[in-house]
């Protein structure tokens, strides 16, 4: 006849319950203005957040290293590409080639790539094109080199995009790629009076400019101001010349764009790593404070429990 005394049970429960409340009460003390309820779980949450931010910092640091290596290569390949661009545009300037005025159709080529995390590279080009097409978008056709420009321009100007070039940015581009793009542009058969290539011109590691380069059709070249000065020209030569100079302009533009993109990605990943580092510092401080608060709480618990005895 040893039945458990129900009143004893009830009193045990109240003791346990009050101890729990006591425990919760000690930790409900506001610490630095932050209400920390159930700080054991908060400690784990902070620890998880700290681990994930540290991982992110490692990733951004390695991306920065990779971009730095790719930038070095892109810069090396840009050096011989610059005379290519300069040589072609020199002829257009000296012969004073102008777009055909009777044909208001414009062909805009946006030179971007497929990959992001490179700062404002792609959005600068799209902003430039959007500003140009803001008034009248009816007589313009857009060719997107790279997925990023297509994604950004297809929201407003989906009807104007007539072609898209993919798989750009993974490997450095060659003249063959540029020649294929030029063939694509010419085979599309879009009758344009004047064309522009929108690209980012590389200035320094931390800066680039969004610029335009004009290109012209064979008829525009044949009707140029000073073309009569040029000796022994026939339609075949002008056509071949126009095709090759379009390819070389695209090659130059691709190289400049690649160099700007890699340097921009390098600086973006560098600032991301720095931001992650700052977050890690702040989180570590919070983590240590929380840890000390938990320990203090446990100590108080133990001491008050011992005092009760």
């Amino acid at each position, binding site marked *: 006849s040893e039945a458990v005394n129900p009143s004893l049970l009830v009193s045990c429960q109240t003791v346990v319950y009050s101890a729990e409340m006591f425990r919760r009460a000690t930790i409900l003390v506001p610490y630095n203005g932050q209400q920390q309820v159930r700080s054991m779980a908060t400690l784990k949450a902070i620890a998880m957040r700290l681990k994930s931010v540290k991982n992110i910092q490692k990733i951004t640091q390695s991306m920065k290293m990779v971009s730095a290596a790719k930038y070095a290569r892109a810069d090396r*390949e840009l*050096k*011989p*590409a610059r*005379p*290519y661009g*300069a*040589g*072609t545009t*020199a*002829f257009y300037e*000296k*012969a004073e080639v102008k777009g055909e005025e009777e044909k208001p159709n414009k062909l805009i080529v946006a030179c971007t790539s497929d990959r992001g995390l490179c700062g404002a590279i792609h959005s600068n080009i799209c902003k430039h094109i959007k500003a140009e097409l803001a008034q009248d978008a009816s007589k313009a056709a857009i060719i997107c080199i790279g997925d990023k420009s297509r994604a950004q321009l297809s929201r407003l100007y989906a009807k104007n995009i007539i072609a898209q070039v993919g798989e750009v940015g993974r490997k450095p581009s*060659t*003249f063959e790629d540029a020649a294929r793009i030029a063939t694509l542009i010419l085979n599309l058969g879009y009758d344009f009076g004047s064309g522009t290539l929108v690209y980012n011109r590389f200035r320094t590691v931390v800066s680039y400019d969004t610029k335009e380069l004009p290109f012209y059709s064979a008829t525009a070249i044949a009707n140029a101001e*000073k073309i009569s*000065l*040029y*000796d*022994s*020209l026939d339609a*075949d*030569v*002008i056509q*071949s*010349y126009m095709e*090759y*100079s379009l390819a*070389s302009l695209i*090659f130059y533009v691709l190289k400049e764009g690649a160099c700007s993109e890699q340097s921009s990605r390098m600086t973006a990943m560098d600032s991301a790593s720095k931001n992650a580092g700052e977050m890690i510092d702040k989180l570590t401080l919070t983590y240590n404070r929380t840890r000390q608060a938990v320990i203090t709480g446990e100590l108080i618990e133990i001491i008050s429990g011992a005092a009760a005895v």
Partner: protein
Amino acid sequence: MFSRAASTLVRRVSLVGTRSYSDGPMAFTFASQNQVFYNGADVRQVDVPSFSGSFGILPKHVPSLAVLKPGVLTVLEADGAAKKYFVSSGIVTINEDSSVQILAEEAAGVEELDLGAARDILSKAHSEANAATSEEAKAEALIKVEVAEELVKAAESG
């Protein structure tokens, strides 16, 4: 009247004579897709192989445009040294201010060409031309044959 005709003839002859010496600078730019050989350099003469015939460019050449044919391009530098390069294709621009830009798709000094490798390319191109079915493939293969033949010629001479 006779004397006037004679004097103009003499003048024209002397002009032709003086044109073979470089008077005035020629800003010569020659680049391929991955290498710049000359950038605004001052050279004496450049011989280019083009589809409208091989011709030599001297300073103050009449402005012209030309398309490069596969072949050997010779540069006569200011100090008299002659350098030969093999070019596959490209364009030549001669402007009014005597600046010359030659943009080649692929270019290499003839000393760097390997005769054995060039002959391999030629035989492969021949077999491709024989095996080609469509018009476009045949045209591409024939272009390869032409470039390979010129490559072999350049490698033999270099």
